[in-house]
């Protein structure tokens, strides 16, 4: 807890939401808690060791200071590591609380091992003023994860007029993006990148040339041809990435490329990264897990933007993580109602929820199938995204507010509807067998436990 105000928010939250909290296995941390005998992975110091983590009133403490009152969670056989950080989520508040709220999104994040989430501004209204940033910052204070608003680059996401980015930063904006509505006008993108330079925050541009995308509904290729669905070619993305990287290298500003989906895009980023330090990029679990063959079922849960592409693209994204061209994993958690997905493919909304299936999916693809080290995977979910956003990433030193995840590395489990904490159920991972399961998440003096916890 960082301040009295935060404590008060939290207090009222607990009183009001006690019932919900119990139902979904959320509890307030005991004063002293020992995470005993786990395999500790600290990505900040690049070390894996067996040991204990002591949490004293919500902060990391010295294990030797435990007392008789100290509650214990036996972590033998489990991994203890930094709480995950998702830099690309949609919590839909304000405007579409039927899909997700800051609260339900936070609960979903906790269940997925995330303790820190950056939320995109494409709400109703879009987050394009310092007042709206302030609303999000204040409202999310009482919820169990740290929620950071991303502000819009242009007013009403119109792609024309810059927002008050300076004032928005003062209220807590951590980055700027017109997500969902890519900035098409190159001059506006240049202005935004130049303007943001002294703020030292990244601009995140959903990289897509909307003219090249046209009415495309899925990746343009043999599968789209077979299905008769209009295609969205890979170069609609890579062309825009090229433009954005040219501009950012000219202005020297920070740029972050979200949800990279194509081999051509990896190549573009790779080329620029050798000469230019301020570029970073992310990939989603679903682009790592699925290829466009999955769309043959016309299942609208596979409809996402950018589209899921070919097996070759998928393999190049994995390679991109391996080589460091892609910095981190971000979920692009995009909740939609059943009504918006239960329709024909052309009319269905784009996006899938992703927070709760993330770890099981990426562990399966990267560690189980592609022999990544667990430590590398943990970095893609912790220090790497934190570095992109400029967050503190030294989480296990004493006095730090505890942000911890405890997971069962090799556990095979089925992702099912009834476990979902999000307000929405739009996920093609439902029914999939995933590997690696979140057991506990600790954040902001609260603990999520997958099963009933007696402490």
């Amino acid at each position, binding site marked *: 807890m960082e301040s009295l105000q935060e404590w008060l928010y939290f207090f009222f939250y607990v009183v009001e939401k006690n019932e919900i909290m119990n139902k979904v296995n959320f509890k307030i941390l005991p004063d002293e808690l020992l995470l005993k005998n786990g395999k500790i992975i600290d990505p900040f110091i690049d070390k894996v060791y067996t040991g204990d983590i002591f949490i004293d009133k919500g902060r990391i403490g010295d294990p030797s200071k435990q007392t008789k009152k100290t509650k214990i969670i036996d972590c033998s056989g489990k991994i203890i590591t930094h709480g995950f950080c998702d830099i690309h989520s949609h919590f839909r508040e304000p405007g579409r609380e039927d899909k997700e709220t800051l609260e339900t999104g936070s609960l979903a994040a906790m269940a997925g091992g995330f303790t820190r989430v950056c939320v995109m501004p494409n709400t109703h209204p879009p987050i394009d003023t310092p007042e709206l940033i302030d609303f999000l910052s204040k409202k999310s204070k009482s919820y169990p994860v740290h929620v950071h608003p991303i502000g819009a680059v242009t007013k009403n996401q119109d792609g024309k007029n810059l927002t008050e980015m300076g004032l928005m930063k003062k209220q807590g904006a951590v980055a700027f993006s017109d997500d969902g509505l890519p900035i098409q006008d190159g001059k506006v993108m240049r202005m935004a990148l130049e303007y943001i330079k002294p703020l030292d925050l990244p601009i995140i541009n959903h990289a897509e040339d909307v003219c090249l995308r046209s009415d495309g509904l899925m990746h343009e*290729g*043999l599968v*789209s*041809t*077979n*299905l*008769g*669905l*209009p*295609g969205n070619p890979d170069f609609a993305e890579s062309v825009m990435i090229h433009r954005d990287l040219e501009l950012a290298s000219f202005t020297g500003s920070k740029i972050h490329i979200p949800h990279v989906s194509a081999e051509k895009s990896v190549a573009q980023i790779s080329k620029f990264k050798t000469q230019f330090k301020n570029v970073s990029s992310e990939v989603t679990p679903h682009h790592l897990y699925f290829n466009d063959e999955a769309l043959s*079922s*016309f299942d*609208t849960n596979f409809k996402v933007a950018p589209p899921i592409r070919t097996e070759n693209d998928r393999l190049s994204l994995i390679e991109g993580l391996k080589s460091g061209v892609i910095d981190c994993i971000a979920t692009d958690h995009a909740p939609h109602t059943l*009504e918006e997905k*239960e*329709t*024909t*493919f*052309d*009319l269905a909304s784009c996006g899938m929820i992703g927070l709760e299936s993330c770890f099981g999916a990426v562990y399966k693809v990267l560690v189980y199938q592609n022999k990544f080290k667990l430590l590398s995977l943990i970095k893609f979910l912790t220090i790497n995204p934190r570095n992109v956003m400029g967050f503190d990433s030294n989480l296990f030193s004493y006095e730090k507010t505890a942000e911890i995840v405890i997971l069962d590395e090799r556990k095979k489990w089925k992702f099912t509807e009834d476990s979902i904490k999000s307000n929405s159920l739009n996920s093609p991972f439902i029914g999939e067998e995933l590997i690696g399961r979140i057991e506990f998440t600790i954040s902001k003096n609260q603990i999520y436990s997958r099963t009933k916890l007696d402490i």
Partner: protein
Amino acid sequence: MSLKNRHLFGLKDYPKKDIESILDLAFKFREVLDRPIKKVPSLNGLTVVNLFFENSTRTRISFELAQKRLSCDTVNFSASSSSLKKGESFKDTAQNIEAMKIDAVVIRHPSPGAPKTLSKFIKSIIINAGDGTHEHPTQAILDMMSLKEKFGFLKGLKIGIIGDILHSRVALSNIYGLKTMGAEITLCGPPNLIPEFLKDLGVNINYDVDEVIDWADALNVLRIQRERMGIGLVPSVREYRNFFGINQKRIEKHKKDIVIMHPGPINRGVEIDSAVADGQNAIILDQVLNGVASRMAILFLLCGGKK
């Protein structure tokens, strides 16, 4: 005799044996259509709904006639007269109609995949009568029947498909069906309207229509929609006619009989001239009659088991 799949969504990966069964039965029903009394009691007592979310004259009448010749009860639903305009969802419309106890649905819809989506909402047997730019399997069956009627075989036949392949469900279903039956296919039309990916399905692409006429035993000439003219896809009618239009002069130059097909409706003077469409090598009206027989065969094979 029954088919492997319960529904007819498309001809991709459709079993060859089942296409043969449909064609064999279609020829038998074709004989029925030549009798003075053209009705058989095969599907007496079954109810089929023709669910048309997109305009159609030929296909809808063809299905309706096929159903009537088989003695089943039919109900027609078209989007313009429906509650869809009042904002009712696709799912609600489908479930409401099924709640009235029906056995099969013939669906036409502008969205690719709509028949498959429909199958998640209702339990009836579903027949795709054209879903956007995806498939039109009954058209391909009647095209194959017409070719078989003309040539006696399909294996090794050389078929040229001319026109806007990218937006054509007829082309896609023809490709799948004809490839399964062992025919050879060459696609021809403006390059921006032919997806290169189709080469992976084992078809040829040739942008020179005269070469294709020289090569082919039959041409399937697709309708070029006038609304696609002049919006960046096809520069003008004149340009299209000049490079891809099927006219008498072009046909005569090749000094051979070449069978002319067209799925209709024809844009006379655009993709095909009247002289060719009405000429002795055209089997366009045979296609229409075979459409009824083919759809009778499909309905019988899919729904007959229900009786």
